[in-house]
């Protein structure tokens, strides 16, 4: 597994600009599709954008990012996480094509060991990752000196968190009573 310092040295010029980052992710997405981890089973019965790899990854991320908010009962927790992954799949459909491609390419790279190691310093696959493993990986990304890694942290964190809070069922957990007005209104 390349250390972060090694990555800084070897990739400094490539990661220097956002343009290079985007190009890098684009090429990497193609590359990663040939090298994905085997054995990931889909979490969703039907998914439009997320392949089984990405579904498993988001399951693990949701379990860590939303810890403290998710039900403690294992069955209920699992059910909520599947909902979060399903919402994430639908929210990708609401993005314009260039952002859909960018996010799917990134997820593809995070599903394959070599690109995953390069991007987030994690060689091992998502299937066996514990909540602690994922939390510690996320903390590493968040404090990284490489802006690409911090950007990946923000994207992964925001994807699962916004998918969770998209559900009005979560509002009571955070003390939001909901809108004061109910629609539908009138067209002028």
């Amino acid at each position, binding site marked *: 597994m390349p250390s972060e310092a090694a990555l800084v040295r070897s990739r400094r010029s490539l990661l220097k600009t*956002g343009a290079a980052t985007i190009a890098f992710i684009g090429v990497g997405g193609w590359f990663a599709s040939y090298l994905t981890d085997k054995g990931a089973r889909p979490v969703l019965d039907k998914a439009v954008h997320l392949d089984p790899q990405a579904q498993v990854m988001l399951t693990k991320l949701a379990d860590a*990012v939303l810890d403290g*908010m998710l039900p403690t009962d294992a069955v209920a927790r699992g059910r909520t996480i599947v909902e979060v992954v399903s919402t994430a799949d639908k929210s990708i459909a609401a993005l314009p094509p260039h952002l859909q491609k960018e996010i799917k390419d990134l997820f593809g790279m995070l599903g394959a060991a070599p690109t995953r190691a390069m991007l987030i310093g994690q060689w091992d696959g998502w299937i066996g990752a514990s909540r602690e493993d994922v939390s510690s990986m996320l903390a590493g990304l968040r*404090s990284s000196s490489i802006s690409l890694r*911090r950007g990946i942290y*923000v994207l992964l964190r925001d994807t699962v968190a916004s998918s*969770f*809070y998209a559900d009005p069922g979560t509002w009571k957990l955070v003390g939001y009573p909901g809108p004061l007005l109910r629609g*539908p209104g009138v067209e002028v």
Partner: protein
Amino acid sequence: MKSRKTYNGAALDKDFTLDTDVVIVGTGAGGGFAAEILTNAGLRVVMLEKGGYHTARNFSQNDAEATPMLYMDAGSQRTKDNGIVVLQGRTVGGGTTINWTTSFRTPELTLNHWVDAYGLKSFAPQAMLPHFEAVEKRLNIHTWKEAEPNANNRMVAKGCDALGYKWDLMRRNVNGCANSGLCGLGCPINAKQGMLVTTIPSALDKGAVIIYCAEATRIVHDGKRASAVEALAMDPLGQSPTGRKIRINAEHVVVAAGAIRSPALLMRSKVPDPSGLTGKRTFLHPVSIVMAKMREQIDPFHGAPQSVYSDHFWLPEGKLFGTARLGYKIQTQPLLPALLGGLLNKDSGPAAADLLKSLPFLQSTLALHRDGFDQHEKCGTVELAGTTGTVLDYPINDFLMNSLAQSTLEMMEIQFAAGAEYSLPLHLDARPLRNMTEAKAWAKEVKMEPLRMLTGSAHVMGGCQMGTDAKNSVVNEWGRHHAMENLSVIDASVFPTSIGANPQQSIYAMAFKNATALARSSTWRISPTPATKGLSTSQIAPFVFADAALGRISDAVS
């Protein structure tokens, strides 16, 4: 009942062509306002809008549903290096459908600077006064005293009072506001006097046409005159082209697609650019945000989002430019679960859960930075990507980063003065800070760098700036393109600096002035005559539609 011609690009099953006097690309504060003025002058107007025609009938009060419906790129638009989230409206009415109704006249210092530095004489404060008054009357812009500011805003006033900072009440473009607070998701009771409920229905009732879910891709021209605008029909969310093409042949083209896509349309169309400034000098009013946990209940989700502001830090060193940092306006930011949990909070696990569970006690203050007044500021550059894509490059330099870091500390001081238990800056290495000693120590300890110090924008300006001649600007002070006889730009992209205040009223007043001048100009091969009320359907439908079955023509009750 009046018949309205509204075409849904998403429903087109054939390519589609229309002839008109004026085609307006975009229906926000610039395009939407110009549409009414040009229609009233007797001109045939066709509006093109990339987004859908969403109204109070289908506005969702859930931000997770409303955001993909109403915002550009489903609210995910970012600058090239991902350093700045850039929110823009993408729906009929543009930003005026989803803004928080905050209304300011363009500050006099800004207008005087435009006169002095850019020669824009018609923007002198005295000359602009009647235009500000006219748009205030049209959109019911007034100091909002119908209700007390909500606690989120009261805390800013309280903190400012404690520190001896002057603050004031906002002016808002509302009529019968119910103070529910979800302005950003589209007003469910049509109290917000945006283009969606004012100028656009008025123009449609007088015969203007709107084609929504249609993204303009090219201005057809010969280097001197424009002859048409070509557009792609889009899916119902305005995201992906359906394959159908639209062409609007017009005597005059008004570009009003916002300060990212207006310059991009000129660039993609290879409109002559003698100054080389098309797509250059884009301003964002970059925002820093600090949340605070208060000791009393705030409910930052209910009540008018912005009702109090302070200009205490607007003019650092008493100067408009040549200062060590950017000036800024202090305002507030409403908080909803998906916005707080999905965007503003950057924690994971139990720390994130703790913050979210404090939502009813959270206050949120923002600093709106006045960018683009200094010559050394490069600000943003619009770049084309692929056949329709557009990217804004806006590097966060040390000057801006320093400004964001300082305003973050100053906002915390206001929150502590208002009694905050702790403040939480929008920074990846943020932690709850309980007083200014802790806050200053934290600011020295953490790195202030892009994608660590987080920033956003809800105001995009510049990129087609006004000026005196073709060597120093893209358009003249009336919005007319220097190199093209019949091309105008009427939106925030014409501003030569940022405004230094929420820009909607500046756009309305500029649009009022420049669209009125356009209507009266001798550009028309036909002579415009004022429209009269009560025209019959046949009289207000001067077009021969290529095929009446194309698209959806809806009849709406006005």
